């Protein structure tokens, strides 16, 4: 710490930190355009010039390091003269039509201009016009407004990790543009809108909708992944009009994924379920809430309650539900005496699951020196977690991936294309080497395992690291050895002092687990329910053709004549209306208050940004009234916050896990991993139109290498399980990786 003087005021600062960091901390305002606290310094806009005593020229605050005894003037004649000069230069070629610009009212240039600009420009030489370019469905460009701050370029380079935007040409002709015809494709691209200080890059879906000052900004939490990114929903007349990122260093820093930014578009989709409906003699009828709920209760009475046949009732929920919703629903079911409760819908075999504990805080991920990713395309599946790991890699960490495909990583990854059936064996090999090194006794199952080049390498990488993390991803949920992989990983972590991250279940699944939204020992899980002879179901926001692994079985179980199905849904859906008896419209994301639990176990609550459309109601209210009608005790909640109070008393049941390891070999000629493409992972996303026409939204491929294609007698003109074939050599042999934006091919997958 040294003492310096800013505008006559004594201030403590670290030698070497930049002047602007100190002025920001001290709330001394210094104008800036190119500086952004999370991006590298470019010092090119020259707006932040200040006077440093002893320096002949004014110095940029953003790139002048603090030194002992410095005396800085941010507002004296010299500083202001420079700032005004720069402002004048910035404005000569910038349109002065703020009233028609989309950034109007939230433009950093406009703000500073008001303070510094002289009223009349002396520039009469004709302004530069830059031809517009189409850079994709998410970002609108108006490059005549660009002030060449290069924040967007640096964002792409440094944060998104792919350099898509660049500054071509030179001098006055300098032009910010992408090189590729497809424009900007990064999964984080929308942040360029936030970093752009002017109206050059704005939100395309939001274009010309409104002025920023007409909207209210409501803090909220994204629920599409395990991070729970902080953001603001900006609303006008009861609609979410735009989403911008919030600041939270422990969660998403200042970035959000495109998925979190643009999903709101789905809220106003015409497919929203808007009114309660009941099925009478096979015909749907729109009714009042009380009629619908009465109908629901009667159905439950008829099918279950009267006969006290609670074992024949099942409750299933989507993992995008809030903690409160999940808690209330399991409470309601359990109060009725029902133990058939589950949120794990897409797991093939629920007796064989990944159950690894996550032991690493998100922010600490940046500090690892080694990361092993198993079964995940982190960049698209968990963009913000990927961002942290990328930072670790950039500061020197080694990252290795065991994936079925060499994905397009945006940092250096040692990638090994590996068949799903080889993962457990590989981990076993690693474990064996580690145990040998530690001179510990080998368990039975390792005796026959023989180390190979890859396992030796992996073991060495782990042993050399001081701070390693093992990451299990979504592709493992239906791995034939999921539970063994989970156990092996835990053992390896123990021996190597590694931390672990379990990313196999996303959105709010961690919360669902915590809320006990899983069957206890007497209850049935999702798959068992569909095999059993059930009489009634209560379903929360479920869309069978996307959500279930055994979608065909699920559909036939739900469609049986004598099964009474109550469905709470945010969107209408053909299949739902086929099998349901009551459909209750529910509030979607941004329309309800609640809580999300992220990978760190951090509970983040949010309030509703808007109210739900039509007759739709927040789920907690629906469930509360239903409980009251069923005369169940303990549902006297006035709001969701009250539900939360109850939750804090919730004791989490820890489940016994099978700790055995079974090392199987490949059992099928070709192994298939089926994943929804990233912008299809929940119902709101599936209705966000701009996302779905983006490059990532268009992903719909069954990837395989040429020899696998030959085995399957397929060419790249065919489709596999209804998904177009992509022949690519970066796949493990005899494996197919499906990333699809369409419904699970019903019946096709077993």
């Amino acid at each position, binding site marked *: 710490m040294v003492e310096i003087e800013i505008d006559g005021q004594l201030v403590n600062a670290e030698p070497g930190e930049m002047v602007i960091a100190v002025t920001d901390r001290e709330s001394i305002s210094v104008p800036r355009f190119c500086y952004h606290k999370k991006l590298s310094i470019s010092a090119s806009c020259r707006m932040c010039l200040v006077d440093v005593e002893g320096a002949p020229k004014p110095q940029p605050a953003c790139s002048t390091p603090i030194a002992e005894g410095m005396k800085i003037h941010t507002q004296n004649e010299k500083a202001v003269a420079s700032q005004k000069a720069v402002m004048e230069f910035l404005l000569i070629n910038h349109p002065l039509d703020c009233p028609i610009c989309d950034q109007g009212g939230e433009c950093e240039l406009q703000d500073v201009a008001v303070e510094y600009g002289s009223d009349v420009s002396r520039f009469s030489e004709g302004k530069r016009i830059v031809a517009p370019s189409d850079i994709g469905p998410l970002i609108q460009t108006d490059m005549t407004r660009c002030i060449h701050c290069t924040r967007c370029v640096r964002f792409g380079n440094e944060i998104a990790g*792919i*350099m*898509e*935007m*660049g*500054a*071509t*040409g*030179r001098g006055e002709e300098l032009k910010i543009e*992408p*090189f*590729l015809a497809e424009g900007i494709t990064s999964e984080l691209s929308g942040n360029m809108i936030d970093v752009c200080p002017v109206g050059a890059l704005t939100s395309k879906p939001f274009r010309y909708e409104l002025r920023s000052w007409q909207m209210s900004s409501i803090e909220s939490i994204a629920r599409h992944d395990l991070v729970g990114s902080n953001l603001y929903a900006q609303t006008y007349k009861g609609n979410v009009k735009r989403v911008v990122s919030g600041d939270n260093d422990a969660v998403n820093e200042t970035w959000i994924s495109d998925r979190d930014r643009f999903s709101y578009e789905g809220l106003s989709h015409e497919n929203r379920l808007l009114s309660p409906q009941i099925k009478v003699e096979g015909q749907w009828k729109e009714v009042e809430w009380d009629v619908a709920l009465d109908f629901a209760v009667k159905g439950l009475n008829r099918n279950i309650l009267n006969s006290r046949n609670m074992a024949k009732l099942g409750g299933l929920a989507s993992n995008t539900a809030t903690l409160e919703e999940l808690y209330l629903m399991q409470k309601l079911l359990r109060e009725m005496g029902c133990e058939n409760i589950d949120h794990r819908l897409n797991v093939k075999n629920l007796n064989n699951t990944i159950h690894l504990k996550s032991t690493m805080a998100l922010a600490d991920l940046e500090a690892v020196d080694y990361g092993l990713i198993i079964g995940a395309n982190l960049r698209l599946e968990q963009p913000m977690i990927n961002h942290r790991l990328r930072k670790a890699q950039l500061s020197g960490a080694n990252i290795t991936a065991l994936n079925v495909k060499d994905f397009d990583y945006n940092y250096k990854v040692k990638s090994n294309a590996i068949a799903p059936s080889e993962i457990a064996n590989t981990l076993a090999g690693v474990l064996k080497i580690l145990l040998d090194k530690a001179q510990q006794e080998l368990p039975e199952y390792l005796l026959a395992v023989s180390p190979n080049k890859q396992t030796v390498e992996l073991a060495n990488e782990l042993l050399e690291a001081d701070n390693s993390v093992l990451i299990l991803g979504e592709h493992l949920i239906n791995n034939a050895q999921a539970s063994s992989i989970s156990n092996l990983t835990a053992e390896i972590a123990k021996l190597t002092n590694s931390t672990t991250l379990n990313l196999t279940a996303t959105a709010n699944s961690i919360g669902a687990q915590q809320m006990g939204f899983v069957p206890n020992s007497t209850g049935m899980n999702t798959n068992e329910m569909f095999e059993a002879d059930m009489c009634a179901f209560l379903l929360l926001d479920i869309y069978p053709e996307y959500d279930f692994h055994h979608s065909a079985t699920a559909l036939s179980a739900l469609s049986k004549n004598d099964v009474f199905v109550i469905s709470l849904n945010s969107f209408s859906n053909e299949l739902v209306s086929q099998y349901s008896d009551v459909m209750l419209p529910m509030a979607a994301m941004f329309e309800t208050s609640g809580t999300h639990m992220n990978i760190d176990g951090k509970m983040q609550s949010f309030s509703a940004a808007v109210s739900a459309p039509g007759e739709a109601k927040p789920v907690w209210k629906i469930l509360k009234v239903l409980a009251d009608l069923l005369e169940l005790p303990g549902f006297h909640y006035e709001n969701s916050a009250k539900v939360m109070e109850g939750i804090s008393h919730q004791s989490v049941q820890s489940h016994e896990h099978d700790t055995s390891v079974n090392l199987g070999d490949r059992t099928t000629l070709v192994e298939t991993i089926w994943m929804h493409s990233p912008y299809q992972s929940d119902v709101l996303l599936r209705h966000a139109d701009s996302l779905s026409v983006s490059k990532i939204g268009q992903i719909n491929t069954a990837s395989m290498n040429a020899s696998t294609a030959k085995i399957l007698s397929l060419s790249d003109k065919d489709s596999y399980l209804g998904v177009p074939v992509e022949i690519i050599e970066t796949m493990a042999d005899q494996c197919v990786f499906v990333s699809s934006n369409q419904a699970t091919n019903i019946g096709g997958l077993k």
Partner: protein
Amino acid sequence: MISNNAKKQIDSWITKYPQGKQSSAVMEALKAVQAENNNQLSHDLIQAVADYLDMPGIAAAEVATFYENYNHQPVGKHIIRFCHNISCMLNGADDLILHLEAKLGVKTGQITKDGLISVKKVECLGACVGAPMFQIGDQYYENLTTDKIDEIVDGLK
């Protein structure tokens, strides 16, 4: 897209730079590729160079558009790069350029009908004591006069 010959040239430039810094060779790579493609760079050629050097396409495009010596529009087989900066101007470059234009029947920026020659006005080429001057290919021509220009231009094939 990149010929073996060009690849050989690029590879020899790469050896001058530290391991992993092969993108230092981008300027020469673009030149080599341009020389083999009618003195002109296309989007695809730039991408090919970027791929060859393992750098983002836009980074190569930044270079290709920043430096003066890359062409993105059709040019003649020979480009007469006529200096019109101060020392050459003081020595009558402007009149000589008019002479050249009249002789070729083109304006600066245009190509002769036979595609042989295009004329470009450029900034100081660092031969001010030989003003007025121009450059064709690797060759400088200094102390130009109308007669000298005629002779040089007539010799272009």
